[in-house]
């Protein structure tokens, strides 16, 4: 395989020559130049212009067709009228009519370059006049100039056989334009493009010439390979691009591209070591850990020697991350600690900062493992560690790390239930940094944080909007992980409103290729499972739910996502409650609470647990027992401004008050809470609040002395029952619906409306029947 030069590079050189020949008219200069530059510049330097969109669609390895599409529409500035640039271009490439002409072609390349002062002086001595001012000369250091010079040098260092390979590949490459070219130029001979064969035909005759051609060009291999059309330079570029994409977006290589890659790499003798890295990434993403270990070690074995030991820490870092993913936390921590010390030794600040950042997050996720190692002296206490990281990041100009440490601080504040203002401050700082430095990759965490914050503050609308904004604007440049998480959050919100189908749709619409990555796929599958589990629970399809739950619980190991595992646990408890297995539910709650206390987990979750415990007491018929729990939950939630949780706690409190026959107080609380709670758009909370309110009014009706007041309360009851019923039916919660129906029927009977009572009772039965039918 060629190192650098390919037929398409010759084409580009010819195009550059066309440009310097001033054949390109002024109007078409920009498209032509941008076409060439697009091929020459490395990927990360390219700006995303709108007019580049057309160029983006070009194949990576440009063939003749690509040249034609670019060149054919432009007329030439000189020469015969009616000739396009494409004709001029063809003339250039068909003028290379022998191997020698190819050598001459490359030998002539320096003529395109502006002469240095020394050369001008030398020319002056030789009597060669300096080039005129109006000629287009390429500066030696311009992208074009360096391309021309590099091509020249690369051609010179080719061995003869490589030059031959280039020549044969070139003849094959331009073959496609032969028909057009010969039509334009009158009939061309059989041997157009090879002057020696054309001359030889007169001497040798047709047959012998053909034979010679076969011998020389080796026409015996039948397959139409594009051998020689790909250089290792191209491959390296391609690999770099791919690795970058994989690291940036976090997806795997699409299958069809993988096959192509394999084909190209098989051809080359020198396999770039980067390809091992690519394999490593792919294997890692696909969850094939043995292969990924293998490939990672292979990559570093091959790179170690030519890049010295300077990169040792990066090897360790990759290894640590991989180990962590693999579940070998102890090894991961050990490797990362070594990374840190090596990075310190080598004064590699970026690496050190990254490693520390990783360590911090790892510590957050797996506190019990970090505890084992004496790493506390490394980063100090959490907050100090973060501050340290932030300062370091600022010093070394690592904007990503800086903003991520700010976000971490915000998150820390959030989970500890600290001042909302401080959290906002951190978020704003980070946001400023992201916008200022154009760190597109950090947009995901930033938006996720915003969305979470608004959700905690009870403004679900805003929270959802942030998610939508991210998905429609930033998802393209962000890690797929972020996309998935935010999609999950939106789906969750939708499910809370009872739009199960819509939520499911959202999840289904994710990029299929990106989902091939193992971890992502697991997350996605779990999320879908959770959604279905919720629906089943609400529909009272307990058998189906049990089945789903057993699967989800199985995969709810320590390495799974903490948010998800909490969600699964809550649903488990819900399931147990619906099964009326209160004892086990209680045990489960206790277990969760104790493990949470150990880890110092998110305050929001703790409140949720407390609320759940209080509710459970209520279910057991001993609501008063949950009083202290509920009060604690409410006070914590109030302090931390966790609004939805606060309303939940308040609901429980109100219920307890109702059980103590303090109906008025209960109704008061509920009446004041309800409008705010409706903002949260959480149907189950609303339904619960409404049903508690019904209870409170019912109680008040019972306490009422005069019938008027009683009637009034009963009407209010009916009203709220309807609303609760509506919320329950939005959730498709059959049990709740039935309860409401039963209450309604009872009220009707109390009021004396027998017919209506009968109607509601039959509606209740119908609902029951329906639910059994669904099951």
């Amino acid at each position, binding site marked *: 395989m060629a190192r650098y030069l390919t037929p398409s590079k010759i084409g580009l050189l010819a195009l550059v020559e066309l440009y310097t020949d001033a054949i390109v008219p002024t109007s078409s200069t920009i498209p032509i130049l941008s076409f060439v530059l697009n091929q020459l510049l490395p990927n990360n330097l390219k700006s995303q212009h709108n007019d580049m969109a057309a160029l983006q669609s070009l194949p990576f390895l440009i063939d003749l067709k690509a040249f034609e599409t670019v060149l054919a529409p432009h007329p030439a500035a000189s020469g015969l009228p009616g000739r396009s640039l494409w004709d001029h271009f063809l003339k250039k490439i068909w003028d290379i*009519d*022998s*191997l*020698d*002409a190819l*050598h*001459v072609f490359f*030998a002539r390349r320096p003529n395109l370059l502006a002469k240095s002062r020394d050369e001008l002086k030398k020319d002056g001595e030789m009597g060669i006049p300096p080039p005129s001012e109006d000629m287009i000369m390429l500066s030696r250091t311009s992208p074009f100039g360096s391309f021309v010079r590099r091509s020249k040098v690369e051609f*010179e260092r080719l061995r*003869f*056989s490589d030059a*031959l390979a280039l*020549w044969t590949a070139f003849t094959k490459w331009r073959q496609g334009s032969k028909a057009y070219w010969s039509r334009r130029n009158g009939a061309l001979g059989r041997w157009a493009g*090879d*002057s*020696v*064969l054309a*001359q*030889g035909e007169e*001497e*040798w*005759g047709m047959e*012998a*010439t053909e*034979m*010679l051609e076969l*011998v*020389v*060009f*080796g026409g015996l291999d039948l397959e139409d390979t594009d051998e020689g059309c790909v250089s290792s330079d191209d491959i390296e570029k391609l690999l770099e691009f791919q690795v970058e994409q994989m690291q940036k977006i976090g997806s795997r290589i699409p299958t069809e591209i993988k096959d192509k890659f394999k084909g190209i790499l098989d051809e080359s003798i020198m396999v770039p070591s980067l390809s091992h890295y690519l394999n490593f990434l792919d294997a890692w993403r696909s969850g094939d850990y043995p292969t990924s270990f293998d490939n990672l070690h292979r990559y570093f074995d091959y790179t170690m020697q030519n890049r010295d030991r300077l990169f040792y820490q990066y090897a360790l870092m990759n290894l640590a991350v991989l180990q962590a993913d693999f579940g070998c936390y102890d090894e991961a921590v050990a490797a990362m600690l070594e990374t840190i010390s090596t990075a310190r030794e080598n004064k590699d600040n970026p690496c050190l900062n990254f490693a520390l950042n990783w360590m911090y997050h790892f510590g957050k996720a797996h506190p019990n493992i970090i505890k084992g190692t004496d790493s506390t002296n490394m980063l100090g206490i959490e907050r100090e560690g973060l501050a340290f990281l932030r300062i370091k990041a600022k010093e070394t100009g690592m904007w990503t790390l800086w903003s991520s440490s700010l976000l971490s601080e915000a998150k820390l504040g959030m989970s500890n239930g600290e001042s909302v203002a401080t959290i906002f401050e951190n978020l704003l700082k980070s946001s400023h940094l992201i916008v200022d430095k154009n760190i597109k990759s950090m947009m995901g965490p930033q938006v996720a944080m915003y969305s979470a914050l608004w959700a905690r503050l009870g403004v679900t609308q805003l929270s959802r909007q942030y998610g939508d904004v991210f998905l429609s604007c930033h998802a393209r440049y962000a890690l797929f992980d972020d996309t998935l998480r935010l999609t999950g959050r939106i789906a969750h919100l939708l499910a809370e409103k009872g739009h199960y189908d819509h939520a499911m749709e959202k999840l289904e619409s994710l990029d299929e290729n990106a989902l091939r990555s193992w971890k992502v796929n697991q997350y996605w599958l779990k999320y879908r499972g959770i959604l279905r589990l919720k629906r089943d629970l609400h529909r009272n399809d307990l058998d189906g739910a049990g089945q789903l739950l057993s699967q989800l619980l199985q995969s709810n190991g320590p390495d799974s996502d903490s948010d998800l595992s909490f969600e699964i646990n809550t649903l488990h408890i819900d399931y147990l409650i619906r099964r009326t297995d209160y004892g086990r539910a209680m045990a489960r709650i206790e277990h969760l609470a104790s493990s949470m206390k150990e880890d110092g987990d998110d305050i929001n979750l703790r409140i949720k647990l407390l609320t759940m415990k209080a509710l459970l007491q209520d279910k057991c018929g001993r609501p008063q027992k949950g009083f202290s729990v509920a009060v604690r939950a409410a006070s914590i939630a109030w302090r931390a401004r966790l609004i939805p949780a606060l309303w939940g706690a308040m609901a429980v409190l109100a219920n307890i008050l109702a059980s103590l026959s303090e109906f008025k107080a209960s109704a008061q609380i509920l009446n004041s809470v309800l409008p705010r709670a409706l903002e949260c758009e959480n149907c189950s909370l609303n339904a619960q609040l409404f049903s508690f309110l019904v209870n409170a009014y019912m109680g008040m009706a019972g306490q009422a002395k005069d019938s008027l007041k009683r009637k009034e309360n009963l009407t209010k009851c009916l009203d709220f029952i309807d609303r609760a019923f509506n919320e329950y039916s939005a959730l498709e919660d059959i049990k709740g619906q039935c309860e409401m129906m039963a209450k309604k029927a009872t009220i009707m009977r109390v009021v004396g409306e027998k017919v209506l009572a009968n109607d509601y009772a039959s509606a209740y039965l119908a609902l029951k029947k329906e639910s059994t039918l669904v099951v």
Partner: protein
Amino acid sequence: MPLNERETAHLRAALQGAVVKCSERCLYQSAKWAAELLTSIQSSDTSSEPEDSQMTEVPLEGLPPIVVTGNIDPEEAQLEAREINQYLLAKSLFDCREYDRCAAVFLPDTVLSGILSTATPKNQTTSTPKGKGKGKASSTRTSSTGMFKAPRLSQKSLFLALYAKFMSGEKKKDEDSEMVMGPHDGGNTINKQLVTIARFLEGWFAERESENGHATGSQGWLEYLYGMVLAKDKNEEEAMRWLIRSVHLYSFNWGCWMEMTSLISRVEDLNRMSTHLPQNILSFIFHLHTSLELYQSTPTLANSLSQLLTIFPTSPFLLTCLALLAYHTKDFVTADAHFSNLLSLHPHRLDSLDHYSNILYVMNLRPKLSFLAHLCSSVDKFRPESCVVIGNYYSLLSSHEKAVQYFRRALTLDRTCLSAWTLMGHEYVELKNTHAAIESYRRAVDVNRRDYRAWYGLGQTYEVLEMHAYALWYYKRAAGLRPWDGKMWMAVGSCLQKMGRDLEGIKALKRALLADTYYDAGVGNSFGSGGRERGGTMDPEILLQIAGMYERLEDDVEARAYMEMCVAQEEGAADNLEASIINIHSDSQSSDEESRPGAGTGGGDSGAGTGVTAATSKARMWLAKHAMRTGDYTRAMQLATELCQDGVEVEEAKALVREVRVRLEGGGDQ
């Protein structure tokens, strides 16, 4: 020399036999050569089927056996029959290039070491057997006669075994040699098996020697091997004797002839030894080939070549000879045409394409040379010929480092690749690495003493180093090899001139003049190509040089005559040329050959001159000044104005004109 049916059939059968016999003995190149020749015999007619069967009946019954031939000698035949299985094993091993194992099939190492240890160190050929036999008897286990005791083997097996030993030695030699032109590459690694083989063969021949000094019943192959071994040992006289004996016994072994060619370094040697050779078609071809190797290009040679071509009309070997013949006469166009034709007939044949690349190089046909390089590289990248062609191409592109690299590769593949050594020398000269250049030229000459280019290159290099005495020596060698090449004589002449030996220098340069006209007109005409005939114009440079030397010798008349002649070359017209040549003749006292150019050039002169060159301008200037000195102002005036017109050294010419005008006017006044 057309042959009749019967003779053709004989020839064909003999060649068939040769192919089989050579390949039986693993002489692949000889077999290839014979087979090429065999297929190039024109089959008599379309109706050759029945005739063929008649023809083949003559020497052999039916078809020639492909695997093994029978032997006419009954004793040998019996031996061969007995050894057939071992023989087949040995041959397969040889084909797999396991030489030592192959040799050990027939001659286990114990036998060979026995010979080595007991043989007397003296290198005698006739009187040793008895003494050696005695020594031998003590060491070997059997002691039947006390004579040289070799295992009783057929000659074929013996040849194969010893040849395998020889090849193994060559292989080891190649492996032991250092990198080409590396610090330790003295070119003096030797084949360590030579002594063993020589001793063994010595003994073998001595054992069977009859009164007339020939081994009885020998079939020629072992003699060939012995000759080859002796030649490697630089014992050339003796080697030649054995080789001649071999071709007498079996003449269809082309390898043997090739060995002889490489031993002949002068035409005289060739002529002297040709009386000892058997008279058959092979010796005819040998004569032709060797003459070509010695850069001969006489009409007789051309004649004999065309005769051979009537028998073997499509033989690539002979076509190559044809092209080389044209090349040696500097008729590049014809040579190119011949090679080109050869290429179209045998596109996969790489042999001697390196010569073709030299021709294309000289003609500066870059596209064609690139195509040739492409072809060679596609057929086989790792043949010395391919590497030389590629090297030549790079040299033409002025990438001398790369050229050197490829020549080196050629030499790594085959250290005896003569042209690569020479060409590498040229490249080193271009790279101004005179030390390396001298070394590689020296190696070229060591490989083959007939390479005039290497000698010439050596001379040139020493001239660059301003060591004229050395340069002269080498130039003389080159001129001796190519007496009809003006360039050589010119080099000799200018060298002599620089050493201040003007008289000799003049002589040499005059020869150069003659030689030029000889090739240009004489030979060119005789081949009827006439492509690059320059009509017998002489090189004005040389004329100027001669004139200059005469001037230094203070022979004004001669100097002036030569200056006139030099100027006359501008027109190159026939009449003054005639005069000038006569002028030379009257002057020269050298041999009779010099009458030829006059006759040659007399004919079809196109009258195309060289035009104004630096040399003629200088000559004109000299003449003008001379005319001034002698007072011939009108002439001086005429010459000076001509100079002004020519546009060379205008200033000086104008000054001259002014001066002449002054003088003329002054003269008029007086």
